């Protein structure tokens, strides 16, 4: 496989910026909120059953 030229890739990305789609924002915040919520719940559960 040819070694990718990262410099060219970065230049291409800078010229063709892809804005965050609403679905991406949802993915980000729903995932994060689920993670924090689960963390609190599992910590409570694990301390409860220690």
């Amino acid at each position: 496989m040819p070694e990718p030229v990262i410099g060219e890739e970065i230049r291409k990305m800078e010229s063709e910026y892809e804005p965050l789609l609403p679905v991406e924002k949802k993915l980000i915040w729903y995932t994060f909120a689920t993670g924090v919520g689960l963390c609190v719940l599992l910590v409570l559960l694990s301390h409860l059953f220690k």
Partner: protein
Amino acid sequence: MATPVEPPVPQRRPPPTVVHLSEDWLSVWIGMLVFVLSLGLLAGLDTLGWAVTTSVWTSPAKALAPASKNYAHLPGLVSLLLTYLAMLVVLMAGAKAIGASVKRFAQGFTVIFAVSYACWFLGSWAYIAATPDKRAALHLPWSLNLTNESGFIIALVVGLVIGNFMPGLAAWLKEAVRPELYIKTAIVVLGGFLGIMVLDQRRLASAMIFQGLCAIVCAYLIFWPIVYFVARRYFGFSREWAAPLASGISICGVSAAIATGAAIRARPVVPVMVSSLVVIFAVVELLILPFGAQHFLSGSPMVAGAWMGLAVKTDGAAVASGAIAESLIRAKAAANGINFQPGWILGAATTVKVFIDIMIGVWAFVLAWVWTTKIEQRADQKVSAKQIWQRFPKFVLGYVVTFLGVMVLGTLVPSLLPKVKTAMGQANIFRAIFFVLTFFTIGVLSNFRKLWQEGIAKLAAVYVLCLFGYIIWVGLLISWLFFSGMLPPTVKG
């Protein structure tokens, strides 16, 4: 003029496609071979007793010995030679199965084994390895107190020197520089060893497994979205780059970057580029974090182990960091008169890492679904069960089989437990050798000159910012939340 009729061209059959075994599956087979051979003891066959052990030494002539008393007549060097030859034969067969050049593999492996074992041997020198409780017996006025696992650090440093200053030698060794194969094989063997620990300390081990699973679920969901957001919003990376980058930085390095790249159908160059960066930073973490853990977390050893599994990327570097953290923390505890049982800190790191690897498949599936149905809206392209299976890390199966195998044997036939313990002790010799091979080859593979490549700075900036500004600290917090108050058992006597 009539066109001359050309004779029909006989249709050539396409050459038969040779399907090679993957490195992942190979690690399962080699690990299982070691495991099964070690269990020969249950049938009265001491099949691995000739394998070499290296004790903490003051006189080099007395350092090497066979593992079993049945082979006590063998000189240490003969035992070492037998161990090398056995590994060479098995790995050469493995090299053939994965389609590597057997000759070049054998040449490279010979050098790698020799250098790695020399590092392990040096790391077992009493002045480096002896812990304070052993100094009197060895008649030593002082020692560095690093345990014999300092051999791992020496192997890593020697590997780094070769990888960065001797590119010719590094290229010559390339065919046998396979840290992922070595560490995955070691993890399969480690499953049996951890099974023994669970049988000895059921309550603590079950808690460790449960907390490890909880920690991973949280870490996945908390790490990934923030890294993805930072890469997209503040560094302007495209979706194709941001998703593998987020997985590489936040989850499990190389495997996660590749699985995510496949899930979102990124060009193959993207995960390859991300992976090369992951390997470099994993080595940086490996060199720093275990020492930080020893300094700040020696009172919470299991937190330290879980932290290594959560924060250090790539299987090899994470489990390696767990091994170093364990040796450093046990040494510090021994200086204070506490002898923690070996294996628990490493066990926490490995448990967390194994769960991470299992979760990669699940997360790749979620991303593939989101990308195909929501972002690129190709509802017709469904992720098949076959694809999920292809993305599943197979060495995890080997780990589960050896772990459960020992658990079942020890539970159903408790009278066999002493023999199973001895068998796992012998298998563990090969686990340690595969570990030291991993450390050395990680070093050889880490080419820091890649950091000077044009354009890499932006990629590295996301990595540094997210890893050192977020992942490490949130990983520490999560490890603390789930593992604080949990201590490894102590060795009596």
